[in-house]
């Protein structure tokens, strides 16, 4: 097992290298340079001043040389500094990551809590009116544009009813509150985004659980369990559900990059200070070091997520073992 893990990690290095090379290349193919947004068509900035900035940022070099420099710095675990505010990329990411993990973690939890019962129920009452109704429900969630739903809920729950804050993660005066109220305040801010995120991505997980469950309940061992005279709930929840959920672990592992990647549309609508906005704004501003930093971390976590999924899968399912 250890040797296998080690081998997988070793293989990850060339893959990661390839990902960074392609990211860097694509980034430089996109029109525009980091200095453009600041200096183009700004009467206060002359052409010479612009050239000087381009040189100071090392953007006058061909991109393979820039890539070499970036790689050299990375080998010392230095992700460089953002062009936008000259802060280390690592601290910019570290600042956003917790907020994104909090939001995505809460939504993932809610998705699991809702989709497992929904999936199981649909599987047991397959093709019933309720099953079909649930299908329609989750697919409505899947198809509805998130920003539209978000705005609608902001108007309804936020403005008309006045129950919840509209945007952000903290109230303006949260610094003055006692610790407990601060947590409550954050919770209130999280309700809308977590709900919207969970509702719009319920479909995937609940359909997945339903299919797995359908497959499992027709297995021989379930028939055997019934034949032993076990009660229906014991058959379903102990014998069938446990096995049906094994593949869910894989899906969870694969969702690790989504967990940290954040969603730009989401975070923009809810004025939420997370990774999605960091990445998107870096792309728009052509902030190369930040794009690369976010890219490398996302790539590394994707690889790690895959590995983790495989390992935990082997752990929860004794049938899957590495030889």
């Amino acid at each position, binding site marked *: 097992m250890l040797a296998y893990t080690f081998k997988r990690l070793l293989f990850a290095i060339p893959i990661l290298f390839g990902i960074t090379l392609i990211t860097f290349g694509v980034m430089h193919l996109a029109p525009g340079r980091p200095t453009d947004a600041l200096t183009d068509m700004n009467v*206060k900035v002359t052409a010479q001043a*612009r050239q000087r900035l381009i040189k100071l940022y090392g953007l006058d070099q061909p991109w393979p040389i820039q890539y070499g420099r970036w790689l050299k710095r990375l080998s010392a675990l230095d992700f460089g500094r953002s062009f936008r505010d000259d802060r280390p990329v690592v601290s910019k990411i570290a600042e956003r990551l917790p907020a994104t993990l909090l939001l995505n973690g809460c939504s993932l939890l809610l998705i699991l809590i809702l989709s497992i019962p929904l999936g199981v129920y649909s599987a047991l009452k397959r093709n019933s009116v309720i099953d079909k109704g649930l299908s329609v429900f989750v697919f409505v969630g899947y198809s509805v544009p998130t920003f539209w739903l978000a705005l609608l809920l902001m108007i309804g729950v936020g*403005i008309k009813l006045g129950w919840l804050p509209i945007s952000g993660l903290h109230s303006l005066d949260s610094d003055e509150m006692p610790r407990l109220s601060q947590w409550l305040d954050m919770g209130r801010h999280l309700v809308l985004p977590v709900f919207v995120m969970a509702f719009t991505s319920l479909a995937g997980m609940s359909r997945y659980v339903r299919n797995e469950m359908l497959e499992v309940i027709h297995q021989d061992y379930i028939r055997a369990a019934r034949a032993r005279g076990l009660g229906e709930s014991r058959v379903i929840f102990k014998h069938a559900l446990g096995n049906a959920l094994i593949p869910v672990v894989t899906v969870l592992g694969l969702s690790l990059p989504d967990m940290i990647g954040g969603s730009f549309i989401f975070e923009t609508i809810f004025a939420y200070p997370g990774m999605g906005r960091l990445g998107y704004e870096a792309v728009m501003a052509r902030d190369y070091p930040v794009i690369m930093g976010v890219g490398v971390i996302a790539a590394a976590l994707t690889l790690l997520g895959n590995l983790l999924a495989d390992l935990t899968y082997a752990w929860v399912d004794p049938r899957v073992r590495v030889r």
Partner: protein
Amino acid sequence: MRSRSAIGRFLAASALYAGLMQLVNWPAIICHASAYPLPLAAPPSASCPSIGDTYVDTSIGDASFLNPVLATDSASGDINNLVFNGLLKYDKDLNLVGSLAESWQVKKRGLRIIFKLRRDVRWHDGEPFTAKDVEFTYRKLTDPSVRTPYGADFSLIEKVETPDPLTVVVIYKEPFAPALESWTMGILPEHIFKTGDFNSHPANRHPIGTGPYKFFEWKTDEKIVLKENPDYFEGRPCLDRYIYRIIPDQAVQFLELRQQGIDSMTLTPDQYKAYPEFFEHYRKFRYPAFMYSYLGFNLKKNIFKDRRVRLAIAQAIDKEEIIKGVLLGFGKAATGPFPPGSWAFDATVKDLPYDPAAARKLLSDAGWTPGPDGWLQKEGQPLEFTLMTNQGNKLRELSSQIIQNHLARIGIRVKLKVLEWSSFIHDYIDKKDFDAVILGWSLGRDPDQYTIWHSHQTGEGQYNFISYANPEVDRLLEAGRRTYDRKAREKIYKKIHRLLAEDLPYIFLYYPEALPVIHHRFQGPEVAAAGIGWNFREWYVPQSLQRYRLAF
């Protein structure tokens, strides 16, 4: 272990992911109870009828550098204006008046400017402000390793001398009247930046200035908080706190406005016309912004070399329809390169009336006659061109469609092309590979527009990309830079205004209006030539109307 059920293992696996989350630095987003004590109801000071309360402003984007030498974005500018001071500033009528400088003299026809500094100014950390700080700021602006885009205005300086701590003598290589405006640049504290790298200095996120507000905290992409500077040299500001909330979506900003989560916002024309219930707690303002939109001709193209063609196009475009359709009426037809609020604006320059018949006649005089397909042509050459603008600016895209429609009426075929900004600028504008463009200029308060109109400014990346050349305009632009006397300059720029309106290198389309709303509990906002925030320090909220009294 063996006996554990599959569900148990599943839950354990989930816990593993949860554990992963815990590894990451939590406290970064969790607020700590802050240490500053709640202010007691302080007695009103001399210039404030009452003090207290918080002003919550909002912005689409976060700030980058809280350092006026490095910042280029408007969010950083908003904060820097409250934390730093220049030697000079603009008053409500756009006159330059002293700020950190008590007085100044222009000598030797502009080759020497002597600033006398105020003696009662202290940095927010208590250190005295001196002439050394001014010299330091100048050195940084011209230091080749500093990432500032503002060096140009200061490169004409030969040297800066500080004969005593309260005197700054700036010696110029040549007279340069806009130099006075360049001294509105925020002055930085030398004692803070003495050590460490300037570009990445921690003070760029925790600024120490001399301004009416002190920096308090910055939560990236959430908010920036400033608090009042009780020792401000012009008197303490009446509002205790200034909070800058980052809300990246304009629709959500608007909902926050309805909820009174923000006290101020700049509206789009359609938001300005929304239901009255959105504004029951707000006062609406409107005034001409310091910018204009234009249709610029590439004067290197043969068809546009003929002034009659440019004039005909100008007469065939109904600006009022553009203003009604695109700005919902919140704008004014433009007549030249200076906005109505500027002292360089010549109100006697009349706009060309919309007159398609005259346009058609002008074109037929110039030899352009309708061909068999109805479109105008001369010697088999059709009168057609491509009108380009950048993606992401709805106003410009709509304007180009209206213009296409208007010109089709007199037989000119216009193709439209909307391009991504960077490629538009670098592959087309810089290479002069375009027929006509729709763009806009955001202007400084000084009317010097040498870089836009002078015939020497046509190189790649320079701003006279339409290749305009008029020796008289060149001469006037140069004279405007050498002349310090305001009355004399006014004459020069009004002349330029008239010449450009006659030459029509651009068709000046419209001056849009700024449309801010401000919560009605604030007393003091007043529109002037300088816009609306010029007296922000004096805005106040009567005790009974204060909203944030308890918490802050």
